[in-house]
């Protein structure tokens, strides 16, 4: 699977190109649209491969190294294949007091991976994140685009089942 994902013949789809161009024109400079461009491609493909990086840089007319600089700095841009669902558990201070370390070890055990890794079937990737702004409802985790609060291990176990 990984091999397939690293395939060299990479091409951006027309929709992706259009979308990137739209943002490129909308921002003040094409460089400013680079985060948005990376997000567009990542949304479709899950992660940003080296080939993708070159293709995006071409459209934005900036150097690939400038783009790489961005892609490696920001925590939400993935440079390695990730699972279909991204689990981010909040490990900041309020959630810490509400037992986020138990959540972490529970998830690691349940998914049989360590933090930062992806399950073999590419179903889940597990990542930490800083405070999700729901500290009054701690502990909190985020799966893909949704935030779940006031969690218990039991609830998390049930939640996982609803993501394929």
């Amino acid at each position, binding site marked *: 699977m990984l091999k397939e994902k690293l395939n060299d013949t990479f091409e951006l789809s027309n929709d992706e190109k259009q979308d990137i161009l739209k943002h490129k024109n909308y921002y003040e400079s094409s460089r400013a649209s680079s985060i948005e461009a990376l997000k567009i491609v990542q949304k479709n493909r899950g992660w940003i491969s080296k080939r993708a990086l070159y293709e995006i840089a071409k459209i934005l007319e900036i150097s690939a190294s400038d783009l790489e600089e961005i892609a490696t700095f920001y*925590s939400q841009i993935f440079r390695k294949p990730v699972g279909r669902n991204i689990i981010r558990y909040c490990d900041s201070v309020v959630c810490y007091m509400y037992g986020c370390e138990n959540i972490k070890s529970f998830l690691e055990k349940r998914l049989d991976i360590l933090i930062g890794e992806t399950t073999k079937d590419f179903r889940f990737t597990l990542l930490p994140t800083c*405070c999700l702004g729901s500290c*009054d409802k701690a502990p909190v985790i985020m799966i893909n685009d949704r935030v779940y609060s006031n969690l218990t291990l039991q609830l998390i176990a049930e939640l996982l089942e609803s993501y394929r």
Partner: protein
Amino acid sequence: MKKILRTSETHPLTWWLNENQDVVWIKEYKKKGGYLAFEKAIKSIAPSEIIKIVKDSELRGRGGAGFYTGVKWSLMSTDENINIRYLLCNADEMEPGTYKDKFLMEKIPHQLIEGILISSLALRVSRSYIFLRGEYIRAENILRQAISEAKKYGYIGNNVFGSNLSFEIFLHSGAGRYICGEETALINSLEGRRANPRFKPPFPASVGVWGKPTCINNVETLSNIPPIILNGVQWYKNLSKSLDTGTKIMGFSGKVKNPGLWELPFGITAREILEDYAGGMNDGLTLKAWQPGGASTEFLTYEHIDIPMDFSSVSRAGSRLGTALAMAVDNTVNMVSLVRNIEEFFSRESCGWCTPCRDGLPWIVFILRDLEKFKGHKDDVKLLEELCYRLGPGKTFCAHAPGAIAPLRSAIKYFRQEFDSCLESSQIINIKFIKGVQPNNKI
């Protein structure tokens, strides 16, 4: 717990909320008098006059630093030859323990938009940006819809209210990293660069994003602008019980009965918030320590609980008001472990630009982890104090490092015996120090 009666007189930021706390969309917002302040400003108040009103109101920035907004605005270059200026709304809320900007954006988005429009008018800005944190997806969707509503009603666009002015609000959503919340790092990030802070001077007010004069204000700060314009300076000043004017979104989280946030007058005591609003500590727990406003503020103890929550009182007590969303630490929490968690956050989020912060913070984390596991070394606490000094104010490129060591330094100050007792239980390994060389068995 207190029953809260919100009126436009006493709760200018949150009285818009309806019972179910749904999003206040434009219809409801307008019905309750929304956008009247913008109309008043554009029709009858000169930009310089708006700046003066905000200055007189003594509104202070709500992002954490507490700089006077009116003063910040008046620093903006007024050079007639410059026809492009920017207003950036800092919505990159990521300070652990803080959840107020998200609340304002998700519940009353039009108040922020109106605040941005009035501020743009005052600062002669036609294009403003909201720099939103990437994870705030719900807030993003709500803001997008609110912006398009405001466009439909003609508040955003060309020739607003028949004037020759045009306004545009651009929503930019980030891709992570705490440091983006630092003003100049935010500028770099918006330009599509790594979010390393920039050297000051020049200040953003003269050379900011894309080299143009730029003003950066927090979400809550901007949300305060419409009520000030509508109701006047005197009214605004009278809201508060202290020298700082207006109201502030404050809160309490941690093991309290009713964690949450409330709009309260400055000067209310931390005890009142904790007991009357947050319902006190959970049964069986007592308050041991608390942070007044976010992870980068110094710990205070139970003895400080009666201090008024305003900028000067909290700093007199040895901490910072920060974002005013306080966090309670109960008696079951070990300070060494708690601080280790906080330092892991700051260490992970260091932008890596300057050495004390990039290398010092991981070092602090190693030491704390060792202490926590009773594997400390004889001089560890002293070493931590030394590191607090090396990462202190003025020694690093930006305020990240001084903010990072604030909780550590204060925890050692008030709870030294907890650190020491970790050491006492440790099987002390006496390593031989070679002068100037860092022992690497920490790693």
